[in-house]
């Protein structure tokens, strides 16, 4: 006789242990952390398995599922470049259940990590071009990996402009490493905060990111613009880019939709027929223009 459970489902008679579980995370140790702002933190993680630490590879722009056991999983970009291997960094803002639990974790503790997922910035196609990176608030995090990649491969690209913007000085991420970016030859760093977000000793620009970018009069010739920020900023950045003469194919951004599986199956992050987790998160403005407004 088969045993029937309360829900009516029969207990299986034969079972096997899964061996290629796509939902099984790697275990990673928190080896370092840094507070970027009052609510945003960067964690440095190391794989517990030395073999995985050796072989794990990813592309700039890909993301992962980070998990606190007993609380749940959460999606963040891999915030460091594959040119800086041996560890993984993520920067997250404490806004919900998992990020709050993650914020409570201490150095030496273990979290789960599965990935890398999604597509990436086509950094090979960009070789020889001028690069503009415009990040707003936590959106700069999505650009950090690809910025590091391009800075580490400095010779492959023409001049680089980085605009790191935020609502207020307090919300600006990566304050402590921006100087390091600026020191690289041929890199211009501009920092900006929204009007009213400045402090008396603020030495950056004051203005909304799209306006500040436009005032810098960046030439679209042989250039690539990569931007990420809150939806409203992205919308106005795309308009600014158009006014500056950028073609939609020259403009890249990333979409962030709520995700669960990261594998194109759970049916949640789609924008029209495309899954942000699999077909994205990186899209050009030309691709976005064709998508239904479902993000």
């Amino acid at each position, binding site marked *: 006789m088969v045993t029937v459970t309360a829900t009516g489902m029969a207990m299986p008679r034969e079972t096997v242990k*899964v061996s290629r579980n796509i939902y099984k995370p790697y275990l990673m140790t928190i080896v370092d952390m840094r507070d970027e702002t009052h609510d945003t933190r960067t964690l440095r993680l190391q794989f517990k398995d030395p073999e995985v630490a050796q072989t794990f590879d990813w592309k700039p722009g890909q993301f992962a599922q980070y998990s606190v056991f007993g609380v*749940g999983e959460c999606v963040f970009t891999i915030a460091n470049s594959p040119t800086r291997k041996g560890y993984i960094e993520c920067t997250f803002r404490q806004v919900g259940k998992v990020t709050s639990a993650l914020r409570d974790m201490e150095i030496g503790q273990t979290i789960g990590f599965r990935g890398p997922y999604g597509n990436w910035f086509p950094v090979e196609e960009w070789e020889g071009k001028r690069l503009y990176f415009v990040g707003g608030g936590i959106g700069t995090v999505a650009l950090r990996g690809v910025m590091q990649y391009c800075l580490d491969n400095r010779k492959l690209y023409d001049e680089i402009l980085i605009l790191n913007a935020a609502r207020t000085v307090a919300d600006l991420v990566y304050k402590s490493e921006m100087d390091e970016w600026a020191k690289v030859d041929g890199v211009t760093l501009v920092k900006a905060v929204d009007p009213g977000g400045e402090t008396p000793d603020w030495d950056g620009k004051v203005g909304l990111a799209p306006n500040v970018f436009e005032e810098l009069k960046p030439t679209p010739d042989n250039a690539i613009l990569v931007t990420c920020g809150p939806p409203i900023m992205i919308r106005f950045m795309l308009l600014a880019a158009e006014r500056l003469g950028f073609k939609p194919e020259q403009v890249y951004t990333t979409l962030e939709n709520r995700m669960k599986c990261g594998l194109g199956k759970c049916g949640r992050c789609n924008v029209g027929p495309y899954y942000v987790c699999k077909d994205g998160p990186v899209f050009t403005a030309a691709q976005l223009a064709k998508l239904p407004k479902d993000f």
Partner: protein
Amino acid sequence: MLRKRLTRENLNKWIDGLVASGLRVIAPVRERDGGRGARDGKGGLTLFRPITSSAEIAADYTKTDLPFKEWLFPPTEVILHYRIVDGEPVLEDPEVDATKTVALFLRPCDAAAIPILDSVFGGDYEDEFYMTRRRNLTVVGLSCTEPQPECFCAAVGLSPTSEAGSDILLTPVGDEFLVEVLTEKGEQLVNQYADLFADAGDLTKEQVTEQAIAKMLRKESLPTFAETYSELFEHPVWEEIARKCLGCGVCAYSCPTCHCYDIVDEATLFEGVRCRNWDCCGFALFTLHASGHNPRPTQAHRYRQRVLHKFAYFLQTYGRNMCVGCGRCVIKCPVGMDIYEVVQKVAQASERVGV
């Protein structure tokens, strides 16, 4: 393809033989105890349940109250176990059901849903939980002779006798069954009991098909929107359609093809599981971002997703639409939403805007 014939008596012998051979045989069974919401006036629900004898099979069922889906993709499932030992998480791979199983008497609509689920859970990043159960499953379909008022399989490219998803398809013709053996898996089940089956000879299902389709009330081929969804996206028709939708999710939960899921942790201090649970695009929290932003803030956005996923996006990605016309969502909806009518309404609206 092998074609055989089988008498009713031999059908029961075959089923009892399969049970005796140690296979798990799952078939429509009338659950008399504890069933709620039955509409057949006979008490209980008809559901796919393991049987120990052919006599347990619900003899006169037209369609099970729930599809076969739960046997391949259970409503809740552990996808990871962990324990905290000395402060450190220790991961354990869960066990997955690998029982050799025969699913009996799926109606062609329910059988056709299985290849649809296969394309989601297979492919890149194969889902081992689903695929292990799937590999151990053989499907014996049963053609439908009594389409119900809500049915519309013929409107979505299927028919009451279509083969899609079945390894073997039985069609009642007169006092016997025509047995179409469609796959190698199916052949194995038939070959072991070869003496029960006779050659099909001139037995055909054409007339049965015709008669069944003639009884079907809704069979006008439904349009799809793979080419036109962009233009339709902002159409006011969605608001009009979704106004009465309660967002209860019964359509998705009773759908043989809906497969959206959530992943959540359930834990005590020192032990826990990560579970995969059925979810539904009609729920307000489904796409809600942690920031508070929601790409689908109203029921109109969410119902649009349901219709376009089934009749546009899935078609574009996997080459067929994601509805098999079983009509369960139609009979179960508490406010009478009818996806057959909705799709026609959207198509009419698209004509009005000249799409």
